[in-house]
């Protein structure tokens, strides 16, 4: 006879409460015993943890042939002579940043944050006279290696376009969750040292291209004494940007202090070659239809 068969509501409630207490007690007891047993025999704990792996979006990812598994000779060969080969061959980056015309205070503020991140970044205020495609040609003529354009909407920076020069590619990102260095609690101060770069979890061919694009903005050899690390962490196609100062406390522990800024990028499209909205060849375009499965990622 179950609890639900008791017709007296007060009695039913009383018994239910009692049942719950019992169940909790049993659970506590079970956990206590488990803890004891595992303390005596650590192998048990290991075995339990080995077996009890929760299914996440990451470890149930759909098969994707674009994922570069380990050391792929073919990919390495192709990356050796792609558009970034010159940078990885030692050519010093020279980067220009600009905005869309009539940029507001917040956008310019964001550009200034960027200037503190990327060494030797040059900001040129955008006028109305020249189109982006013309500006790209000017940059090519002046031997810039990259052009960054911050676009704004309603006074807020919303998009970031990255043009690698002289031959492309061009990437367009959505820009969200910007937090300036000073808005971060307990933030550190940046120094002028070249930061080191951490590119996490860029797994596919597309991801590699994007990762190499970011890498090409920074000087090849970091100044390690600055202990500054710039991170582009890709998780489920969201690219999280962070900058930290770190200190190694001992051989197992490293402490971080965030310097800022932080923001999130999401790839909207990647165009082969230089920016050309009319007749450019798109390698990848984001469509809402692509996001049918959360276990499928593109970067």
């Amino acid at each position, binding site marked *: 006879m179950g609890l639900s068969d008791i017709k007296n509501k007060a009695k039913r409630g009383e018994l239910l409460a009692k049942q719950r207490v019992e169940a909790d007690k049993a659970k506590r007891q079970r956990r206590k015993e488990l803890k004891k047993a595992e303390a005596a025999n650590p192998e048990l704990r290991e075995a339990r943890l080995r077996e009890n792996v929760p299914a*996440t*979006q*990451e470890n149930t990812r759909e098969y994707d042939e674009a994922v570069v598994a380990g050391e792929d000779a073919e990919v390495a060969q192709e990356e050796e002579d792609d558009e970034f080969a010159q940078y*990885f061959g030692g050519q010093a980056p020279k980067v220009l940043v600009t905005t869309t015309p009539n940029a507001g205070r917040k956008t310019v503020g964001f550009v200034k944050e960027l200037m503190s991140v990327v060494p030797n970044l040059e900001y040129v205020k955008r006028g109305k006279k020249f*189109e*982006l*495609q013309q500006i790209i040609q000017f940059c090519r003529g002046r031997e810039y290696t990259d052009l960054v354009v911050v676009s704004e909407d309603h006074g807020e920076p919303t998009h970031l376009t990255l043009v690698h020069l002289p031959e492309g590619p061009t990437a367009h990102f*959505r820009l*969200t*969750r910007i937090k300036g260095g000073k808005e971060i609690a307990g933030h550190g101060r940046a120094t002028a040292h070249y930061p*080191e*770069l*951490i*590119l*996490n*979890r*860029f797994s596919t061919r597309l991801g*590699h291209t994007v*990762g190499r694009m970011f*890498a090409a903005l920074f000087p*090849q*050899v*970091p100044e*390690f*004494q*600055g*202990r500054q*690390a710039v*991170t582009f*962490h890709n*998780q*489920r*196609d*969201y690219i*999280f940007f*962070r900058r*930290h100062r*770190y*200190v*190694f*406390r*001992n*051989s*197992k522990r*490293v402490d*971080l202090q965030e310097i800022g800024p932080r923001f*999130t990028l*999401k790839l909207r499209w990647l165009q082969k070659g230089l920016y050309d*909205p009319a007749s450019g060849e798109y390698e990848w375009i984001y469509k*809402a239809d692509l*996001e049918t499965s*959360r276990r499928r990622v593109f970067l």
Partner: protein
Amino acid sequence: MNNDGIIWEVLNNQFCSYKVKTDLGNLCRHQYNLTGRCNRKECPLANSRYATVREWGGRIYLCLKTAERAHMPSKQWERVELPKNFAQAVATIDANMQFWPGWMINTCKQRLTKITQYLIRMRRLKLKSKHTLVPIKKKLERRERTREAKAEAAARLDQSIEKELLERLRSKAYGDQPLNVNESVWKEILEGEALAAESDATTEDELEEEEELEDAAAGFVSDESDIEDMPGPAYSSGPDEEDEDEDEEDEDGDEDDSASDSDSDSDQPAAKSKRPADAGARPKPAKRAKKHGPRVEIEYETEAAAPDAMLTNW
């Protein structure tokens, strides 16, 4: 077919489908009208002698009504293509309308000017990139916002960055004399490595050497501060000539650094203290590591080329 008067009577007093009546006067919608006004003089239907300038697909034509073709309304206009050059176009109009009324010649030229100008403007606008308005899809935005928050939580950014940094330190991506590590920490790592190496099988000769080194080092491991205070050569446990050479170099460096060394030593408990950027070759860590015996096997190099490999290693 000289019934212009009758036509105008009908159009004016009865009905004209091209006529638009406004408060300011009557206007004409006919394509061939020279000015757009509705009156006897400028009506393209009620005049058998009429000329205008029109544009088709970026080309400008002078259109002349010919009396001989008046019985075929679809073919009654003679089209003369005007040259692209404005001055030549004006000359062409003059040549074709030699004996026409002066006001009509003038108005044709005015119309030519207007058309030329708007064509120029059209071409310039075509070259400019156009802004397109993109709708903000609320649902999509909301979805991306939540997914972003979840992705950030799943990324566990701090942990993954810490892991990566430690991995780099251990794999010697920072070189053999890293500038971004406290000396004691670096020593700890080297010791850990040496322990691991010791557990591996080594050749007998090496073992013997190591035993000697360990003996030499054993007395000094306990107290770091003593080692730092004492002059270098007394503690050089390295038996080979190479090490002695290095020591000599070190001495030179030490004299310069002596002042800053004492500073940095006092700072050491607060591990955050920055290393002086001008430290240059920084011989110290190398020497420290050497004193502690068995791990002298490591080859010291100048700045390692490791960062390149590291940059590409994601």
